[in-house]
């Protein structure tokens, strides 16, 4: 078995960096790294510069990738500058270079037949869903999208991203955009109305858990991109684990960077933060 057999480490150039609402949309010239990037994959970037006290990489879901264009292969990211590392990245100017490793992790599974898909994103977790929407649309799928956030400014929904979406529904907790409430408040009607056959989600773990409940209640497949803090992004540090049931039903602590980030929602043992789920392989006696 090869691990990350498509991954490349490279110094890549910032081609563009634009503020979009609460986020930065950044484009990087990545050469061959783009050719194997799929929706759901992520990249890991060194932050802070050579004398920085920030020693760990930061992981970012790929928003879009293209392997042909004036600059060769490009990867686009949506950066939320809410920590020291992401703030540093968001301040990079055009032509500066950053050290990037990618593409990493699992990708969203694409159905072989056209299906009715519902894509659910929280905050900037919507980023990888637009690339996924394009792929699904090209396969003849119906693509509906629900994006939620606490306030309107935290929803990432660029115009160009909407082209592949049949109907976009927004929810905000304060009602400043779209429906007042959470993504799970509007999902059941959409699932029923459009006869949704698969749900794809990306966002905070609490949202993914809630989405999974709706998916299970409606008996719809659910693939989600999980989020757990990572030190390396390449599978060596064992910090980003999520308890998952394997095909034999055994719970194992799986790395969200290698066995994920995209996993089958029904296999995740939800609500296990700060405890080892009962029955986990190798749990303390």
């Amino acid at each position, binding site marked *: 078995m090869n691990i990350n057999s498509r991954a490349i480490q490279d110094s890549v150039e910032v081609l563009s960096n634009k503020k979009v609402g609460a986020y930065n949309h950044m484009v990087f010239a990545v050469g061959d790294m783009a050719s194997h990037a799929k929706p759901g994959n992520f990249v890991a970037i060194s932050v802070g510069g050579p004398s920085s006290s920030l020693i760990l990489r930061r992981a970012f879901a790929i928003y879009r990738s293209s392997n042909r264009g004036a600059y060769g292969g490009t990867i686009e990211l949506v950066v939320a500058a809410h920590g020291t590392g992401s703030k540093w990245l968001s301040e990079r100017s055009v032509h500066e270079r950053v050290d990037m490793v990618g593409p990493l992790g699992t990708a969203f599974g694409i159905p072989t037949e056209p299906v009715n898909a519902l894509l659910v994103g929280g905050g900037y977790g919507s980023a990888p869903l637009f690339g996924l929407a394009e792929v699904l649309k090209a396969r003849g799928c119906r693509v509906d999208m629900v994006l939620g956030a606490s306030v309107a400014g935290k929803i990432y929904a660029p115009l160009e991203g909407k082209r592949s979406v049949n109907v976009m529904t927004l929810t905000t907790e304060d009602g400043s955009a779209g429906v007042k409430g959470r993504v799970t408040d509007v999902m059941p009607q959409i699932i029923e109305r459009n006869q949704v056959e698969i749900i794809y989600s990306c966002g905070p773990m609490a949202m993914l858990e809630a989405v999974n409940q709706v998916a299970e209640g409606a008996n719809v497949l659910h693939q989600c991109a999980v989020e757990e803090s990572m030190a390396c992004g390449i599978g*060596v540090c064992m910090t980003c684990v999520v308890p998952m049931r394997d095909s034999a039903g055994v719970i194992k602590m799986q790395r969200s960077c290698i066995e994920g980030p995209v996993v089958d929602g029904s296999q995740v043992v939800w609500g*296990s933060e700060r405890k080892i789920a009962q029955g986990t392989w190798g749990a303390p006696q």
Partner: protein
Amino acid sequence: MGSPTVSEFQAFDFRTKFGSRYFPSPIFTASGCAGSGKELSQFFDLDELGAVVTKSISVKPRSGRPTPRMAETPSGMLNSIGLQGPGIDQFLEIDIPWLQSNGARVIVSISGETVEEYASLARKLRGINSLHGIEVNISCPNVENRGLVFACDPVASRAVIEAVRRNISGDYPIIAKLSPDVTDIVSIANEVVAAGADGLALINTVLGMVIDVDAKRPKLAGITGGLSGPAIRPIAVRAIYQVHKALPQIPILGMGGVTNGRDALEMIFAGASGVSVGTATFGNPSAVIKVKRELLEGLRSRGFNSLSEAIGVAHV
């Protein structure tokens, strides 16, 4: 400056030795920082390394600790993994054959909760002559009971190394991994060497803690964790220096925050015969290769012709 050519490597004697085994380069991975080896093989050839030191393996599978397991700190990180692993049987069946078929020299790191578990792990390994040694991890801070940190107690440290030595042939290199969290590391080093250790790995992580001030509770689910990265490098250099001064004949595998060639030089000059790269790999998958290249450049530019003549030169 580009990579040294093959002939440059040959002109410089970069070899090092632990017990009966020779290694073509003194740069190793650090236990628990190289996964199964497969993950890093995407970024460089494993035979470039002196050896891969595997993640400490236990008798039975271990789930490790719950999440959150990690907190970044200034120039460092806390981890609380808790020795997650598949157990020795699966490890010997899957991981070791893969590493060896990919050209890696392998030092197996073992961890037990009792002296008998260490003995049992040693018995499992004694038939595999192709290994380059055993690292006996008696110093992992991420165990439920701090009383289990053998390396904090000279008597317990001695008992573990004696048990491993009794169960494995005399020429099989044993490297004891010690904790810096002791009052007198030299006294622990003396005990494990007397018990049959051929070399010492210095240092394991330093016990630390971070509190989430918004949640008003410890950041890690395991409450405490092991601090690694450049933040602990001076502690490692001090430990290497002290132990080399007391036991100049015992080879030391130095580690603790090594990120570049200069850091590795510091450890060699303090008395290390080899250097492991750990946390730096998390920030840079090819850190081990960078350290190897820069160490060679650093030694040559300072007029050395071999690694061995540089070991311990900082001692006055």
